[in-house]
């Protein structure tokens, strides 16, 4: 547990000292500023547009951080041989994987927190006060964090065996496919009954369903979500990510350095 927190802290330090991360944060400030300015200058733009565009910007930046940093997490350690000194200490490979994952989650958490603050400031200026429905915006940000955690687990798995470029490509493909899983399922169900349909459906259920985390339209209209949905989504992200991390550990246990 201690090794996980030490490696996690170091991974977090690596990310926040990276110019790309700082650039993404600056971009987040820029996007929030533009949205806020547009809201102030135009009567036609309401808080819903502000929430929608901010959540979209948060998703894009979050995916950028998860994929860009996640893809390099394991392979960079192997290529630069920093893993030698790390694993020559009392650190299990599972602790190494979990430490890396925790470090990147901290980075994503900081990113989400920072952007949530900007959104809250923009919303406060827009509606000049506090709307009780704003809690759903927080829930939407929490769901986004769960979505990014799941994507990071996929990226970490790819990073354990593929080159960084391939890991980026695979991760973006998983994100794209996972965002339309519901449509893919509907398409599979529409087919003729038989083995191909069963296989297509099984594949759809194996793929992550990122759409369950997307509640931006509810948030934009301040429509609260049931507590059950929060629990189910949390459990889904936790179990799925746990399974992917287990796979990553298995891959690394069989690797030699």
């Amino acid at each position: 547990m201690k090794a996980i927190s030490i490696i996690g802290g170091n991974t977090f330090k690596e990310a926040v000292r990276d110019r790309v991360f700082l650039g993404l944060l600056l971009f987040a400030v820029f996007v929030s500023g533009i949205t806020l300015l547009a809201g102030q200058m135009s009567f036609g733009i309401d808080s819903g547009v502000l929430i929608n565009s901010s959540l979209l910007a948060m998703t894009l930046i979050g995916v950028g951080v998860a994929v860009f940093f996640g893809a390099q997490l394991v392979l960079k350690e192997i290529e630069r041989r920093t893993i030698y000194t790390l694993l020559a200490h009392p650190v299990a490979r599972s602790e190494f994987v979990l430490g890396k994952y925790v470090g990147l989650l901290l980075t994503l958490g900081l990113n989400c927190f920072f952007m949530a603050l900007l959104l809250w400031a923009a919303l406060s200026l827009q509606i000049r006060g506090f709307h009780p429905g704003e809690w759903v915006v927080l829930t939407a940000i929490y769901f986004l964090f769960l979505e990014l955690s799941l994507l990071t687990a996929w990226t970490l798995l790819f990073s354990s065996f593929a080159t960084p470029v391939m890991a980026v490509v695979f991760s973006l493909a998983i994100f794209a496919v996972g965002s339309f899983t519901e449509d893919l399922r509907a398409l599979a169900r529409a087919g003729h009954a038989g083995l191909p349909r069963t296989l297509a459906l099984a594949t759809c259920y194996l793929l992550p369903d990122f759409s369950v985390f997307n509640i931006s339209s509810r948030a934009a209209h301040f429509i609260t979500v049931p507590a059950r949905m929060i629990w189910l989504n949390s459990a889904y992200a936790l179990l799925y990510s746990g399974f992917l991390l287990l796979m990553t550990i298995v891959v690394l246990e069989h690797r030699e350095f």
Partner: protein
Amino acid sequence: MNVVEAEGLKKHYHRRKGLHRNRQLALHGLDLQVGEGEIFGLLGHNGAGKTTTIKCLLGLMRPSAGRVRLLGAEMPASRVLKSVGYLPESPYFYQYLTCRELVTFYAALAGVPASQRSERVNSSLLRTGMLAAADMPLRKCSKGMLQRVGLAQAIVHGPQLLILDEPMSGLDPLGRREVRELILELRREGATILFSTHILSDAEQLCDRVAILRQGSLAAAGRMDEILQVSQSQFELTWRQEGSSPPLLSGARQLAASQFQVQVAASQLWQALHVLQGAELISVQPLRRSLEEVFVASTASPTSASQLQEAPQ
């Protein structure tokens, strides 16, 4: 007690060549023992298997066969690594950290309590000559500085066993001397040190015992004095003679104005001493082989690398 024990250590690598997968033998049933408090040198050409041996010892690689015990525990055993310090060959560290941050990171991983960490980090940086540059980012460090920081992280937790892969590489002569002194100092403090090197003079000056690897096999191993066995067949005589007459023994070389030296066979020693009766005899010494001679003789291999490759699988 043996601190390091390797028995029948074998390692195969699988290399792809087109559609074929060739199995290449990197270690051939290597047996190695390092006793407590010893300085042990692992010598050999590039590709002889030094780094592979070290990686197998530390559990970074799984041996294809054989067993490894470190500090009495069967490897791989994560808890034993708490008492082991390791410096990899040409170390590369996290560029975004400073030297102090890096050593602190490894001290924490090795389990140094937070209350002692700062003191231990400063002490190890001081011992490796890096305290003045402690807050320098690693990306600005020279190769020699990285080597020193690598040593600092290896000793920060006061390990019982130090495994150093080419610890002198990248260091200037002064740096090498300092590292040699540090290794001797650590041994005096009770540590056991195993290191690989190409620099035979360092091994000759430091090691109690050495093992010479050739293509993954042990070509020679033993105590330094056994390896450099004192020859009983050759002796070196040094004497001083008065006047400017030619040397009393033929084949002698002049060391100073009236001082000469010659090497003679054991069978001719008494005869030579008889000739030198009128001269001032300074020394009679049996000849020692240099480690370089032993190394060259041990690593001159009749087998080529291609012969080590087995049939494609």
